[in-house]
């Protein structure tokens, strides 16, 4: 009897020990991600901090690292966003309203829905190839600002649609019923009751999608963003560059001076992304309380 109890006790303490060890291992695994993020940020700040200067914002790219700036990249990214945000907002929210409020339950609707979730998983470089064939060649827009912006719009669209759908779905049925009870038409209900209460959620989704688009590099390279642009685009069909393209150009060079310049540009890019994310979180928190 005693032997069994001993064995039993030993087994239990072994199991507890195993549990504790694995607790530590799981904790270490979780901290790996955090450590990686910390190392990444420290590395970039060390390399790039000393180069941060107003020149980076006001100068065009140059063959000499000390003169080079990314004015054309910043402005290029800004222009792309100015086209992308309204376009993807209208198309994305429109599609989401249709799917949530109007779509009949039929084959076509479920096809659209399946299609959107599949599109969200298509690699961004494939969108670049689509943009190259469709906008650059077929529609004859050349390697221009508008080709880049339209390609990026298609890229972020599935993300915005899914986010907007979730926001619209979260609006309680009672709001719609109240509006209908007052004699409002379907569209009046959707535009004046459902949309306003879904708007914080939609905006959060749009901001997150936009912050993804700002850092996206590959599709713009494929549609032909130039790596050296020493002027600002004057029209939609001008050649263009963008922030991540400029960064790629700098960090892919063997010269350390340019690599450090790339790190400075990454600091600016990350700062913009952090600001966008903070604003998304603030919108979410602010309006969540009011509901």
């Amino acid at each position: 009897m005693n032997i069994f109890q001993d064995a039993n006790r030993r087994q239990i303490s072994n199991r507890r020990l195993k549990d504790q060890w694995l607790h530590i291992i799981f904790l270490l695994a979780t901290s790996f991600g955090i450590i990686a993020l910390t190392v990444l940020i420290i590395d970039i700040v060390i390399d790039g901090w000393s180069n941060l200067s107003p020149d980076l914002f006001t100068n065009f790219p140059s063959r000499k690292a000390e003169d080079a700036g990314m004015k054309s990249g910043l402005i290029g990214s800004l222009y792309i966003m100015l086209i992308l945000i309204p376009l993807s907002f209208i198309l994305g929210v429109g599609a989401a309203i249709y799917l949530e409020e109007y779509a009949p339950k039929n084959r076509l609707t479920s096809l659209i829905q399946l299609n959107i979730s599949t599109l969200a998983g298509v690699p961004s470089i494939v969108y670049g190839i689509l943009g190259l064939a469709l906008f650059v060649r077929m529609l004859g827009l050349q390697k221009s600002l508008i080709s880049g912006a339209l390609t990026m719009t298609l890229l972020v669209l599935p993300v915005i649609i899914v986010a907007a759908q979730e926001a619209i779905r979260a609006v309680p049925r009672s709001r719609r019923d109240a509006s209908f009870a007052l004699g409002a038409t379907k569209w009046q209900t959707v535009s004046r009751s459902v949309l306003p209460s879904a708007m914080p959620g939609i905006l959060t989704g749009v901001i997150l999608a936009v912050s993804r688009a700002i850092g996206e590099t590959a599709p713009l390279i494929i549609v032909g963003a130039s790596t050296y642009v020493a002027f600002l685009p004057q029209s939609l069909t001008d050649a263009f560059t963008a922030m991540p393209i400029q960064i790629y150009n700098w960090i892919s060079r063997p010269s350390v001076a340019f690599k450090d310049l790339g790190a400075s540009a990454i600091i600016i890019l990350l700062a913009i992304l952090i600001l966008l994310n903070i604003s998304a979180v603030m919108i979410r928190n602010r309006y969540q309380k009011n509901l």
Partner: protein
Amino acid sequence: MPSKLDTAQAMSSKPTKPNNPFKNSRVSILNKVMPILLFLCAIVSIFTTVGIVITLLSETITFFQSIPFFDFLFGTKWSALIEPKQFGILPLLTGTLLITSIAIGVALPIGLASAIYLSEYAPDKVRRVVKPILEVLAGVPTIVYGYFAISIITPVIQFIFPSAGVYNALSAGIAVGIMIIPMICSLSEDAMRAVPRSLRDGAFALGATRFEVALKIVVPAAFSGIVSSAVLAFSRALGETMIVTLAAGSTPTLTLNPLDSIQTMTAYIVQVSLGDIAHGSVEYGSIFAVGMTLFVFTFLLNLLAQYISRRFREEY
């Protein structure tokens, strides 16, 4: 879904009766036109997919008129930009799979362990801090990971393995792995947290430790979610472009040595796009053929992930 909305709709359609003063007003026109406009917005996504498939197919077919299909699929040499030109996709394919395997090898154990920690061990406070940090990790642009790979990971690898080149598959693979950790972690954690409390309580009541509950109750119950998260992460790693372009090199070699410089399908597409290629040339067509291969792979993987999470979901 019946009653409430239907009656509401029936009531809302009343004002369109003939004697209704609003009949042709802005309100009723908008009410009729908007659904059509909104439908057009929704259909854009279908056009996008159709556009992707048609452009990839048509250019790929043109490409295969000059390069035999079998040479493309089974050729072991890829030199698109240097004479003699050869288009065998195997080197690009092995390069891509090498990177992806390294990435999954890094991300799956770490992502899964983090998911188990966050869902089974972590106190609420810790989870509320750690989850947003992992979300930040997921939001870092891939070009930044590329910089991370060449400025930190590669030097470390070269220090440990002096034979490693400036560009090597291992460095890029690890960076891609770090990039997909948050994806595996958050999707698997969602699946684990969806496992009902009662299952865990039952196991705890039988005297199981937390690790035993995690391994024998939660992981099996959430298995479909975990596998589909891994498949999605795999597909994401396949399509990753900037990290491999920056860190893995641009030499399409048929090798499985992670310390060698290789080229992936995506990096090849970027390399060609950066040069000035004539429309209609074989190189131009090769982008589409490679893109098609990539698209088919990721598309099948995404379908597989959806199928797994639907078909094998444990319902409680």
